[in-house]
């Protein structure tokens, strides 16, 4: 990691996660989703973002964590991956965090469940705790190369 990086963070079941700020388009609160029958794993519904229809991926579901208590009002991060906007459902927003230039990205500890480890680029040690950096490629790359 040559340069200093800035991450937008959020929590999912008390796991502190982060995504590079440059990839985050905006954050929506109190969002409701339309059901999607036959949804692939982790896709929990549709939302209308100023005329564009997005399919929301629930990070909880992809991490194979227990379902959330209140599925009604959701917090959604709109991110850009491979020139397409995607919607990511998380539990709660966190602070914007600066990762210093000299810090190293560590591998996730071996005790991390497989379902979570595959979604991470790595973890960083931070004064507020262990910050897990989410890989958008791992999250959304699974949808590439599909045919209808």
């Amino acid at each position, binding site marked *: 990691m040559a340069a200093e990086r800035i991450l937008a963070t959020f929590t999912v079941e008390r796991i502190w996660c982060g995504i590079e700020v440059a990839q985050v388009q905006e*954050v929506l609160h109190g969002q409701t989703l339309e059901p999607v029958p036959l*949804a692939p794993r982790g896709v929990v519904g549709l*939302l209308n973002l100023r*005329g564009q*229809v997005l399919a929301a991926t629930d990070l909880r579901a992809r991490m194979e964590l227990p379902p959330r208590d209140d599925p009604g009002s959701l917090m959604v991060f709109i991110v*850009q991956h491979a020139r397409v906007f*995607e919607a990511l459902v998380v539990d709660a927003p966190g602070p914007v965090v600066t990762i210093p230039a000299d810090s190293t990205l560590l591998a996730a500890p071996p005790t991390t469940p497989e379902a979570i480890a595959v979604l991470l680029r790595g973890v960083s040690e931070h004064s507020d705790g262990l910050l897990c950096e989410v890989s958008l490629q791992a999250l959304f790359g699974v949808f590439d190369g599909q045919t*209808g």
Partner: protein
Amino acid sequence: MNVDDELIAAFLEESEENLNQLDLDLVTLEANPSDPELLGRIFRTMHTIKGTCGFLAFSNLETLAHAGEDVLAALRDGRIALDGPLTTTLLRLVDDVRGVLATVAATGTEGNAEHTEMISELRGHLAKPDARSAQHQTETAGDRPPEKPTAPSGSHPSWEDTTLKVDLAVLDGLQELVGELTLARMRLGDHIDDDSPLSGAFRRLTVISRDLQDTVMRARLQPISTATDRLRRIVRDIAAAETKAVRIVVEGGDVTVDKAIIEVLRDPLVHLVRNAVDHGIELPAERIQVGKDPEATVTIRATLAGGGAQVEVSDDGRGVSVQDVVNRAVALGQVTATEASEMSESERIGLLFSAGVSTAAAVTTVSGRGVGMDAVRTAIEQVGGGVTVHSESGVGTTFRINVPLKLAILPAIAVDCRGVRLTVPQTDVVAIVRVPREDPDRRLASIGSARFLRYHGTLLPLVDLAAELELASAPTASAVTEIVVVSKLDRTYGLIVDGVGDDFDAVVKPLPRPLQGVAHYAGTTVLASGRPSLILETSAFAIAAARSAPTPPATADVGVGQEDSELVLTVEVADEHFALPAARIRRLAHITRDRVERSGGADVLQYHDSVLTVVHLRQALGRPASPGTGGNLAADDSLALVICRGDTHPDFAVSVDQIGDIHITAALQPATAHLAPVAQQVVVADAVTQVLDVDWLATGAATGRDA
């Protein structure tokens, strides 16, 4: 219209284009004052206008154009140099010419104005002594620079060479005709059966009409530069009026989108650019004070992003004061102070798009209409796009517009399924049928678990949408069965839904990437309520329909709805035709021989959760073993099985040589004695058919009689 009128109309149209190009070229020239190609083109444009004026006897305009041409010739030859004042004069000349053309359009004559002021202004520039011109004369030794071969004046050379100007109304007409063609094709398709000699030609017609539709949509694509070109002049004019120094940079102008979307982008882009220069960009002195380059930059950047096209309008000005925006929004009652304090930063700056909130002190008018940021957003959202704003105080502001590449509108019908509102393309829908629970006309029929609808003398396989979408089964039997009859891929089937809503025009949006692998969806749309809705891919359900009928159902031999008709399945054994009452059939199966096992002296099959006795019909009827096999079938040969309900006996399977079709026949006499395998003979599809006594077969299977 007489010949004169036609000529004048053509002149006006061509001149309008030429003047627009002049605008663009003059502003570009300011940045590249010695570009010979530009200079040549500008001169030729004015020359053409002058020539046509003479031909049409517009002498005042001709004189004006001539004066302009003189100045441009001097520029082209390097005798004078282009500076700010000269550019301003030339641009005002273009405006004056436009004014005359407007008069011509309104009255057919050029009017009486003699343009003496402009002409003397132009001549004034010619008289200026200029050190550069002396040097240039030495260099070129008085000769004109050679004319380089360039593309004809009008537009960017590459676009011009391979394109044709087409009236938008003509394209719209073409699109409408394609729509009519689709409807006519559907109606024709109703009358063409699969085995008709016309079906091949009809399939070809379907492919061609779809290709035609795609091509017409593509004909409407234009580069975004068509919307961004005139922004250069606007930036120059406002900056000059406000004594600000602004340059404009355009990137990605060759990104192409549908013409309708270009039209929608024009006004918003003008508004955003004006806004940037008016309010975003500081006076040069102020900029120097904060350490910025006194010349500000407005950047228009078009790219492909988010599945569509993205146009960004950025400036490096003072940024948007979010607090001011919030204050104004609260003052206008758009939001309460408490609500505002709970919003995220991006939501707060997004208030800029609420009605009336634009922090412009005066309402900016575009094309004579009052336009605010809210109108900008609405216009863009109407075509399925969106706009956001990002700003950093002291650094600059970026407006980001996202639009789809194509405007696809699909006539559609809304359907409900377990509370989910889905969308079905109207072009695929043949009819909507409602069957009451009692079904007095016996329109619904079943063979085992497969259900059919009697429709115009045929049996349509029914597909339960809820089952296909893996939604919960119906809590209670509904009062009415709603069926949408769909025709797709030359298959017609009925889709059972919970309810049918209104028909509406759906703006088609692409399927979001995570759903692109789900075969059942073709795209998405947004309903009037703002809720997103999935558009069903009707061909996916056609395949499900094909599964429930082994072969396409045959035409009914007997009239639909008659009390004394019955469904039968025909099978073939030893070249003879047999029939089984459909009501006694659970399902049909093809398995490999090796799945049949021997137990208790009979052939048995493990099938799902049970063990079925297999009755070989050939043997049961005492027909000789099939020739060429010696009675022994190879392990991977396939067996055709009809799995039957035993009623008082267990279910069993009947193996036959071939499974035939489903037919409607006159009601069968119920068998009484059950002494023989064949109960009666009937004629089905012109063949003598022996109707099997299922109970006799069931008893045989149960008692393990050698079968």
